[in-house]
């Protein structure tokens, strides 16, 4: 039976499937191979998967000088980001081991949302469990939180994408949780859930997600809302306009890792929100209002690998962005100086970024304006994959606001 090389992470970017492995350039795979890839990650005997393996042998064959496996990377990052928490919660060790195995097994990642570290998913699970809901709805589940929550309660998931649905179904079956975890296309009956777990980001999409969550959860229930920089400020306005009260805000509990084992410094926040009877999602914002809420992002990537900062570094980075970006490149231009490269990359819809690569400081800054979330993920992945190593990190992306206003100075 064919098995995916344990070093490889696979992501379904909007235009290409991309395989990442340590010390290799990103490998593009035509989306027509999607079914074959799903068969491969599923470990199914499948003729198409065999053809895929012949076309891309590195997907299944480990090299003699084998690199770090996905499982090893996740375990290392867990200890680095949450080792102190794990030391305080020794009783969580067996659940953590299960979750680490789950997140290390082959799967086809979606590009739309960031998956959390195994330990971070566990932290979030314990925080939800503390609220003791009987029926829980998850709107999207990129990291298998539903599987940690199931067992003591009924969990319904609205998966995002075929890859996530298949992965959750397979993992639920493996854990004997098929009955406890229901994968649906519409969360019904509406108004029947005690708690919804959701992630809110870009303002217009956030309206739709919040609308669905409010319809699904009965009055007196709760929402557990994940939010990251730079979306928090607009989100707090949205919650207030909806008549929702933030009961609790937990900062920095959602530590994300991009496929390929690239950690994002700066954890997301988790809000516990009461859902009173009078709460209603406000009208969708007008185009002008959405524009005013529009964030931008300035992301700094530190400790780049000096050995990779050669004369073609910025070109390799731009080529990787082009693979992963949601839309084709419309313009790309750069300025080359001895210690500094400046790159502009924009797509057909006018979303893009400028980048300054400082060779002497092993530093890359990326300025996204206007900001598009999948392009942000693509550029971060591309930077880590082409310019980084195990020391490379983002300057922490932290929310500046909390329920009471600005908290970060």
């Amino acid at each position, binding site marked *: 039976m064919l098995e995916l090389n344990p070093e490889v992470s696979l992501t379904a970017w909007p235009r290409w499937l991309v395989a990442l492995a340590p010390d290799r350039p990103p490998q593009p795979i035509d989306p027509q191979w999607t079914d074959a890839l799903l068969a491969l990650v599923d470990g199914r005997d499948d003729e198409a998967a065999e053809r895929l393996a012949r076309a891309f042998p590195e997907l299944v064959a480990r090299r003699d000088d084998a690199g770090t496996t996905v499982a090893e990377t996740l375990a290392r990052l867990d*200890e*680095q*980001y949450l*080792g*102190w*928490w794990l*030391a*305080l*919660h020794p009783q969580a060790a067996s659940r953590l081991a299960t979750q680490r195995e789950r997140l290390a097994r082959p799967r086809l990642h979606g590009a739309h949302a960031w998956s959390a570290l195994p330990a971070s998913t566990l*932290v979030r699970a*314990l*925080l939800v469990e*503390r609220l003791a809901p009987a029926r829980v709805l998850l709107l999207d589940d990129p990291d298998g939180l539903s599987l940690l929550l199931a067992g003591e309660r009924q969990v319904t998931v609205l998966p995002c994408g075929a890859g996530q649905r298949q992965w959750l179904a397979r993992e639920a079956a493996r854990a004997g949780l098929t009955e406890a975890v229901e994968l649906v296309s519409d969360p019904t009956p509406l108004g029947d859930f005690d708690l919804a777990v959701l992630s809110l980001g870009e303002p217009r999409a956030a309206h739709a997600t919040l609308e669905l969550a409010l319809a699904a959860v009965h009055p007196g229930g709760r929402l557990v809302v994940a939010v990251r920089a730079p979306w928090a400020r607009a989100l707090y306005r949205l919650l207030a306009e909806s008549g929702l009260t933030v009961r609790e805000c*937990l*900062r*920095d509990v959602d530590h994300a890792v991009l496929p390929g084992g690239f*950690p994002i*410094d*700066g954890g997301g926040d988790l809000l516990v929100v009461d859902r009173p009877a009078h709460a209603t999602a406000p009208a969708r914002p007008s*185009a*002008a209002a959405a*524009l*005013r809420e*529009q964030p*931008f992002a*300035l992301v*700094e990537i*530190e*400790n780049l690998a000096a050995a990779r900062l050669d004369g073609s570094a910025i070109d390799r980075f731009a080529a990787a962005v082009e693979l992963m970006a949601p839309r084709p490149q*419309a*313009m790309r*231009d750069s*300025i080359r100086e001895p210690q500094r490269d*400046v790159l*502009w990359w*924009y797509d*057909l819809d*006018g979303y*893009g970024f*400028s980048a*300054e690569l*400082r060779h002497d*400081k*092993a*530093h890359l*800054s990326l*300025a996204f*304006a*206007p900001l598009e979330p999948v392009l942000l993920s693509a550029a971060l992945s591309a930077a880590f994959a082409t310019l980084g190593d195990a*020391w490379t*990190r983002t*300057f*922490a992306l*932290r929310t*500046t606001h909390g329920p*009471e206003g*600005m*908290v*970060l*100075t």
Partner: protein
Amino acid sequence: MTEPAVPLYHFADGLLLALGVESVQLVDLAHDRQLEVESPYVSAAERLALGWRPDAHLELIPELLEDGVLVEGPQGVDPVLHSKLTALDALYLPAFADALSPRAREAYRVVLEAHARRKRFQVAVGQCSVLPETTLRRALLVGDAAEVGAQDVLCIGDDDLVSVALCMLGHRVTVFDIDDYLLELLGQLRDLYRLELRIAQVDLRDPLEPSAGGPYDVFLTDPMSNRDFFEVFLSRGVALLKPEGRGYVAVMPPTGRLFAEVAGAMGLELGAWHRRHNRYYSPFMKIHWYESDWVEVRRPREPRLVYPAGEMCAPLNFYREDYFMRRAALFTFYDQIEDPRFARPLFLDLLMDVLEDQGEVVLHSRDIFASDDWSLIKAGAAEGHLTIHVDRQRRQIIVEMYPFAEEVDTRLRNLLLAAYKTTETTVQADAVRGVWDIRFS
């Protein structure tokens, strides 16, 4: 300083002293304002921050009492600080509070009070305290003496008051610091909470004296992240460790590779590397953008100290973080521009010509990309770049300027407002860690 027999005055609740490089401010948290303290009054203000009688300018006391700046009596727990720190910690504590033992909870209670007694911050020499919850988590990594045995612990510098948490967990603790205020504050805390705490005024650049004590099981330190600091603090800390001893060092993430290099050159083994373990707060009682990793180092059999214990060290680069400090960046959004037809490449190019003719900026590699609905002007500058993104369909112009050059921004803003936003405009501005966000709507 020697403690006066009778403390008489202290700063009113919510007032604290922040000593910066260029100015000294009295931060008034209750009224969200800062008052400048002129240099002749700083020494007296520092004494007041400890709840002591000032050594000069006594004639000002009646007026300061009347204005509510001073209150009679000894300095205690400031309820405003206590409340604000409690609120900041509440953003993090629920993730692990359930796992705390009764003794750890009591340690946290005392640590929180200790932080709420601190009324002076020496920002100029890099003092930036961690949150009380981080103070506790640092101590918990050493362990509870009931489980790991009482340890001899050395805190090299302790403006984070970790020594208090360590004592509360049953350890024997020594603090080295050079700051008079902190040494006195720690002395007050030791007496108040009956802590097994030894406090010494030590300048690490001097050769280590026998009075430094030790050897210690553990040392903890939070230096500024640069090579000199790492070499001095590691040399002194490791020299005072028992053969199997270990240290914990705060390392700002961008300097991680540098720290590993310095530690490696000294033959130290790296243990657990806790990323983003340490969370800090500012004198304004907000979460500080600064944060650091907490890195465990283990003493080898034969460490190669950069500065042997008996030698003086003379580092040149002390109070500076050693990483690429990005300069301020500016993002300006011009929403609902009036006539997008005139936001086409030809007009925009003319505006850029005018900007350059005004002589405040020299751009190179200036170029325009034009699409049906949007255009991009981009150019390089001596130390950065300029990007102007025009979306005619959404009627928006975005300017990204790095580094933020005030004169250039002013001229460019005037040009863009005159051309595209001639009617009433609202402005909103924010800045965090040198990133300016300005919106004209």
